[in-house]
């Protein structure tokens, strides 16, 4: 705990120091800001590790001069689990940003940026350790605000501000539901201390369901679960890459933390809670990955894949709730483990990918896949690391992505192969859909790698791309290494998840502690795979011999001068899946100039895949509501006589009302 406070102190220090140098000494500001963030994260990592190893919970309480509030913290397995991924990603982000903020448009005021960054990490730390309702909300809102300021880092771009506003709107509206939850809970339990929330476990099912729904909507808007994901694809590209990494890797997960932590106080709910989560999850996963396949903006694509992964996590957790109620402890345990492990993994590889995308943007100067290309030759390290990230996120061995999904599949199979009738039906459908999602992830990742890294450069900037410096590279390398480690030694992942599970579902935790074989096998298989690949490689070297390999132009099937304009573009890569699989509501809007008359003149081809939820549901609704409000404008028509009439009629009304009583 003391280490944690040291981390707090460092973050605050960094936040204050970073602004002092001001605009002039950008370098100094970056040094101070990122340095303190890195140090703080290191301290925090140790603290988190201790929290994971230590049995039981460490609590700390300090009176706070706020009505109803107390500065009470609690560091137990669950908190430590989330702290772990927070500090890992925060550390990598800070290291990465130290160089990233030097170049490009972000140059202008790194000081302020680092203030927000430190404060964001600080508030997230508070969120996952807070043990008091007021403190939690306080930290939660601070987290939203700081991340909002990070999103509008380039506030002279209209789309950045719009993205930030959408984000602030979504999270603020969600927070209203959280307010409702905490206030009602506080009213029922008489105090805002989490300790006193135990009373909630005596609630009747309907009331508890109400609470649960409040939590779901409140946290869902932050986690970006399906209908409330609309802010995500806009906010992530707007923010600097390491911030996108932190947001999509960790901040989104804090909502899952809140859901787990607070729903643990509620009584074990009816099965439909789990079913609801599962439905939302799988819909979100399918929707997210479909949209991800349609984006030509690399960060938008990654953001949508975050939606997909959150969907998978939600699916796992929902299945955990569902089968816990229906009495399948084994399936429940595996589902919970799968969800938690996937959550951790996603934090790792998604931030890795975002950082990589940032480096690619650094190199090619654009977020548009069609402006990249051929970067693997020019930025070999980054390219390699991105491929690692791509393998991990596609759940391919020998990386960590598979482990989480393996447990989720395993849970679904466990109950799917035993149950019969309708009960067994749903898990099996879910397996099929999950497999479909997995296949589409592969499409998305091969698309990103194939279009952005492979082939010929598609723009002059991309042709001149340079490899990023060591801070960015090392940050990514560290994450990639963690991904590989997770894949080779799944035991660690399982143990960590087990520690986190102890609080929310002890029985599951004991089961997980009992399952030792599976992770070992997965690890062994991964190692075997590496061995096979190595063997094949050596064989190839042997056959190839010492002679240098002659290089020539790509075989253009008889066409002598293939240019990058001819090679497959980001859109054409997904044309087949589009026409074959996607439902019409997700089809992108293309302004197509392809029909050729007798005398074809110049035509343009425009392509846009906006979010259907945003453009077809939310925006129209808000517009309508604003119209309705504007209808009342007539009440304030500027006529003094009318205003006087208001006063007198109000008096008369009140007099009548008083007379009635």
């Amino acid at each position, binding site marked *: 705990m003391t280490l944690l406070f040291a981390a707090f102190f460092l973050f605050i220090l960094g936040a204050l120091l970073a602004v002092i140098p001001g605009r002039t000494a950008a370098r100094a500001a970056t040094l101070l800001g990122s340095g303190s963030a890195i140090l703080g994260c290191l301290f925090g990592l140790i603290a988190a590790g201790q929290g994971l190893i230590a049995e039981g919970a460490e609590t700390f309480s300090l009176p706070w001069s706020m009505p109803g509030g107390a500065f009470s913290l609690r560091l137990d397995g669950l908190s430590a689990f989330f702290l772990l991924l927070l500090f890992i990603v925060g550390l990598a982000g800070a290291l990465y940003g130290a160089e990233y903020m030097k170049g490009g448009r972000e140059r202008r005021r790194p000081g302020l940026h680092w203030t927000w960054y430190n404060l964001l990490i600080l508030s997230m730390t508070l969120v996952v350790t807070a043990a008091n309702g007021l403190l939690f909300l306080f930290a939660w809102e601070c987290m939203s605000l700081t991340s909002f300021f990070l999103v509008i880092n380039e506030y002279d771009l209209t789309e950045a501000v719009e993205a930030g506003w959408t984000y602030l709107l979504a999270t603020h509206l969600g927070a209203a539901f959280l307010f409702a939850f905490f206030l009602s809970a506080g009213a029922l339990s008489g105090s805002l201390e989490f300790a006193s929330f135990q009373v909630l476990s005596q609630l009747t099912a309907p009331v508890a369901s109400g609470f649960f729904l409040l939590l779901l909507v409140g946290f869902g808007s932050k986690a970006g679960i399906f209908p409330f994901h609309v802010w995500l694809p806009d906010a992530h590209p707007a923010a600097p890459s390491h911030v996108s990494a932190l947001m999509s890797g960790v901040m989104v997960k804090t909502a899952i933390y809140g859901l787990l932590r607070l729903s643990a106080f509620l009584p074990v709910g009816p099965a439909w809670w789990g079913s609801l989560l599962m439905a939302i999850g799988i819909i979100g996963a399918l929707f997210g990955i479909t949209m991800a396949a349609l984006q030509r903006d690399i960060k938008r694509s990654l953001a949508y894949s975050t939606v997909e992964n959150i969907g998978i996590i939600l699916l796992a957790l929902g299945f955990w709730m569902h089968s816990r109620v229906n009495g399948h402890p084994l399936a429940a345990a595996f589902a919970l483990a799968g969800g938690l492990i996937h959550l951790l993994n996603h934090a790792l590889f998604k931030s890795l990918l975002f950082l990589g995308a940032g480096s690619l943007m650094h190199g090619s100067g654009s977020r548009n896949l069609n402006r990249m290309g051929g970067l693997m030759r020019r930025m070999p390290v980054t390219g390699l690391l991105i491929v690692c990230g791509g393998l991990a996120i596609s759940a391919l061995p020998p990386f960590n992505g598979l482990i989480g999904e393996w447990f989720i599949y395993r849970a679904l199979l466990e109950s799917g192969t035993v149950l019969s009738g309708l009960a067994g039906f749903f898990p099996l459908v879910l397996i099929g859909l999950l497999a479909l999602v997995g296949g589409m992830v592969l499409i998305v990742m091969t698309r990103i790698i194939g279009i952005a890294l492979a082939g010929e450069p598609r723009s002059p900037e991309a042709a001149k791309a340079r490899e990023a410096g060591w801070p960015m590279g090392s940050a990514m390398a560290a994450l990639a290494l963690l991904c590989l480690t997770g894949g080779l030694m799944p035991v660690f992942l399982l143990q960590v998840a087990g520690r986190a599970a102890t609080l929310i579902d002890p029985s599951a935790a004991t089961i997980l502690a009992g399952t030792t074989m599976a992770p070992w096998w997965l690890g062994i298989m991964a190692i075997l795979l590496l061995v096979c690949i190595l063997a094949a490689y050596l064989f190839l070297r042997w056959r190839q011999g010492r002679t240098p390999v002659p290089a020539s132009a790509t075989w253009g099937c008889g066409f002598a001068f293939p240019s990058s304009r001819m090679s497959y573009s980001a859109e054409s890569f997904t044309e087949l899946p589009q026409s074959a699989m996607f439902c019409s509501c997700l089809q992108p809007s293309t302004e197509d100039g392809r029909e050729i008359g007798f005398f074809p003149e110049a035509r343009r081809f425009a392509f846009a895949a906006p979010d259907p939820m945003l453009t077809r549901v939310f925006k129209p609704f808000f517009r309508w509501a604003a119209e309705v409000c504007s209808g009342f404008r007539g009440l304030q*028509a*500027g006529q*003094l006589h009318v205003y006087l*009439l208001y006063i007198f009629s109000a008096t008369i009304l009140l007099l009548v009302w008083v007379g009635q009583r």
Partner: protein
Amino acid sequence: MDNYNPANMLLLLVILFNFFLLGSSRLNACIRTVAIQGGILSLLPLFLHGFSGHSLILAGGAFLLKGIAIPFLLLRAIRQVHIRREMEPLLGYVPTLLLGTLATAGAFIFSDRLPLIEIHRGSLFIPVGLATLATGFLMLITRRKAITQALGYLIFENGVFIFGMLLAEAMPLMVEAGVLLDLLVAVFVMGIVMHQINREFSTMNTDQLSSLRE
């Protein structure tokens, strides 16, 4: 009962003046009427509480302000701004009169229902006060000119003053003085603003004053 008669006479006069104000179309006449009404009201305390020092000072002060100072201000205001001397009603005179009559009748009926204390039973103070309030209200919302709104406000104040008569002992002298002073200053400021309005818009018609709106 009988020691109220002179007071009641005066109050009836007040009502008559109310009707005149609602019906008249001449601005000067209205101002003068308000002046007279104020003067009459300022005599009430003498009849009500005898010639005690308190009531004397009160009556004197009220007379000075309501009867002389304020009307003087208003007259000066309209003399400075050369405006047409009509009332320019939003609502015609006849309908206003009808409304006024209804209101007065209503006031009389309603005031019999009120849980008054013994000595005030049957006295005209309450109904007349209510009627005057209603008159002021009507003046405020049915007349266009800024100055007529000021007049309406004055009549409204008169109505309040009549109520005040009932419990002059509750109102210490200083407070009464303060009230009257405030009234004076308010009207003074109103006069200035009217002047400005006229200078800017070259009319005192408040229809111009509706550009601030949603």
